[in-house]
């Protein structure tokens, strides 16, 4: 019966039965994909979304000082506000003191303007002594900063639910009292240097990796099987070793009394009492990161080179091209997809590298990710860490986009 319908020239029944026939397969496929999809959703997409969200989320303080911000809505921010504002601050602080949650706003306000910490603490301590009426006078009596408009302006500036102040901070900018974007104070401008250093290190690590990996990959792709397998293991062995172990072994090698320095002294390149510092600076970061990221360059290059028939180079030579011309005109252009993949991979990994610079980089070798970690673990400014992380993510996406425009993402080959 249904077979007749399928065969009918009508067309629609055929389509319907095709859908019906394929629905089961689609469901099966969906079912198989579901675990991975959920996994990615939970451990990847959701955290990234949360990070983006956290970097601009400023609702915590808004929720904790509702009356204050409501009362401040009508204040023009020029002179000191009037009595109702101080009354609202009193009520909010009193509520926070009773719930013992005022610590959170201290940290938040201190990011906005330093000096808030002692101001709030002192005020909260003496909150019981405040009597009803004439709050403004009593506040100023507790701490003279309550009489300085800039503190109240700073307080008002924290009112909006969303803020991109963290992003400004990430590029050495900030808001002044009147919400104009100005440069960060000179002694606090560190992020521009950090960003530049990060990009610089990632760039040079990529270049070094490329220079080292190209001949190795070529050798791997052209050697007879028994040698190339051994070489492949040599390339992959560090890959299988713990990252921490590799980095620590570099610390052993590069330290001032370490073997590398011994060799330099033995070769007479430096005096024994004047051994060069190879670690806790950018040199250490370069050396260790290049070694650690090398397999990420070798593998895509190798997989592309493996597909290039050796007869192409022979053809080039038999047609009269010198080995160099044949290489430049034939072999090299064919490896570009692998070069693109390898460089992109190494650069993106390097730009967000954390452990190695943290261990061998020292202060002058620290990268942006180390700063992110610092804000996550030490300063507890998660919003700022998120903002830096988001900026890093945007940077990587931008590189990806530029690469796609220049070379085309279809030309990437990972294997």
């Amino acid at each position, binding site marked *: 019966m249904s077979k007749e319908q399928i065969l009918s020239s009508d067309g629609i029944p055929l389509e319907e039965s095709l859908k019906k026939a394929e629905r089961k397969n689609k469901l099966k496929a969906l079912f198989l994909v579901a675990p991975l999809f959920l996994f990615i959703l939970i451990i990847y997409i959701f955290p990234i979304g949360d990070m983006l969200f956290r970097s601009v989320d400023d609702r915590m303080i808004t929720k904790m000082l509702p009356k204050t911000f409501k009362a401040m809505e009508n204040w023009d921010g020029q002179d000191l506000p009037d009595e109702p504002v101080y009354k609202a601050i009193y009520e909010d602080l009193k509520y926070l003191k009773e719930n013992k949650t005022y610590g959170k706003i201290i940290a938040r306000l201190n990011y906005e303007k330093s000096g808030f910490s002692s101001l709030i603490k002192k005020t909260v301590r003496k909150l019981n002594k405040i009597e009803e009426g004439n709050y403004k006078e009593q506040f100023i009596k507790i701490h003279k900063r309550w009489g300085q408009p800039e503190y109240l302006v700073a307080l008002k500036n924290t009112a909006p639910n969303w803020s991109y102040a963290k992003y400004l901070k990430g590029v050495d900018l900030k808001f002044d009292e009147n919400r104009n974007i100005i440069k960060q104070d000179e002694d606090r401008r560190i992020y521009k240097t950090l960003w530049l250093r990060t990009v610089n290190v990632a760039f040079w690590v990529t270049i070094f990796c490329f220079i080292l990996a190209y001949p190795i990959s070529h050798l791997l792709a052209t050697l007879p099987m028994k040698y190339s397998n051994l070489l492949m293991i040599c390339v992959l062995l560090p890959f299988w070793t713990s990252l921490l172990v590799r980095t620590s072994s570099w610390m052993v090698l590069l330290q001032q009394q370490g073997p590398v320095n011994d060799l330099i002294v033995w070769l007479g390149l430096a005096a024994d009492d004047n051994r060069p510092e190879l670690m806790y600076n950018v040199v250490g970061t370069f050396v260790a990161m290049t070694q650690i990221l090398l397999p990420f360059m070798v593998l895509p290059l190798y997989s592309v080179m493996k597909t290039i*028939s050796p*007869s*192409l180079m*022979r*053809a*080039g*030579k*038999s*047609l*009269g*091209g*010198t*080995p160099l*011309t*044949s290489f430049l*005109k*034939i072999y090299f*252009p*064919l490896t570009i997809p692998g070069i693109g993949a390898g460089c992109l991979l190494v650069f993106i990994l390097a730009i967000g590298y954390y452990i190695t610079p943290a261990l061998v980089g020292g202060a002058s070798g620290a990268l942006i990710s180390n700063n992110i970690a610092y804000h996550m673990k030490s300063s507890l400014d998660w919003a700022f860490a998120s903002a830096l992380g988001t900026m890093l993510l945007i940077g990587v996406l931008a590189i990806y986009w530029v690469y796609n425009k220049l070379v085309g993402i279809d030309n990437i080959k990972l294997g």
Partner: protein
Amino acid sequence: MSNDHFVRFENVDKSYDGKQLVVKGLNLDIEEGEFVTMLGPSGSGKTTCLMMLAGFETPTNGQIYLDNKVISDIPPHKRGIGMVFQNYALFPHMTVYENLAFPLRVRKIPKDEADKKVDKALSMVSLQGFEARMPMQLSGGQQQRVAVARSLVFDPKLVLMDEPLGALDKNLRESMQYEIKHIHENIGVTVVYVTHDQTEALTMSNRIAVFNDGKVQQLSSPDELYERPVNSFVAEFIGENNTFGGEVIDVSGDKCKVKLNSGTEIMANPIVAKSKGDKTTVSLRPERAIIDPEKDMDNNHKGKIEEVIYHGDHTRLRVDLLGNKDFILKIPNSSNRMDIKEGKEIKIGWNSVDCRALDPK
């Protein structure tokens, strides 16, 4: 040293691992304008010889001369030898035009002259209008023709072809065989061609060098090779062949008497086994044996039909004859079909001159 051979291999040895010789004491002369095919089973050393001539492998011992010059010290790109590779080796990132212009560009030939040469080479393989295509956009046969055009575009005196038709299907392969043969005839270039396909070798070549075990077994024209193989390997390798094992018991002039392992005595043509007592393998082409011979033949024997296989234009019979159960006979398909049935006894005759007593297997 050499006397006016265009290409000359002189006592060339080649070993890859220092334990085994892939090519053993090879001597081979090729004249200018010849189409010489190196034919042999895989691993017989034919491709190695080609690679040594092209310069991608160096002889372990011996010399190779090209145009009376020793070429061992000339790198491949200065030898000026065109080459067609097994899988065409077209540069996948270049258009057909760029592929063909590559040898001209590295020779610094001015663009307008190069354009003319490219055009000429493409017209030779009837591929005009394909200049802007990428190799991937061409069919196998077209890629093949581009590869041939590229190997000829810079007017080399010698072109090497390494199983160039191996990847093509049967019909295309046949038409390409003629095409390459005609190109060779038209421009008079010397071609050294490597293949393991005997039909290809027989159709195309002036001379064929049959390789086995690192040695040239026989170097001669196609008909000579088929009609008069000099040893069992060549006889087996080229065309179909019926063999009998036996021992020479008498030699008289250009005939000899061979006692087969089955006990029967037959008359044969002494080629390798020339003296009494020599062990021999007697080789006879299927088409030289005739059923119910009318005229006198010096070998007449009876056999039993074991199998009849219909092949359209001819019928093959497998006959149990003189202890050889796989004796093959070919009967052309004509209107007066003989009465052929399995199990029937038939008379088979052949001339001793076609029955060559070669070296024992």
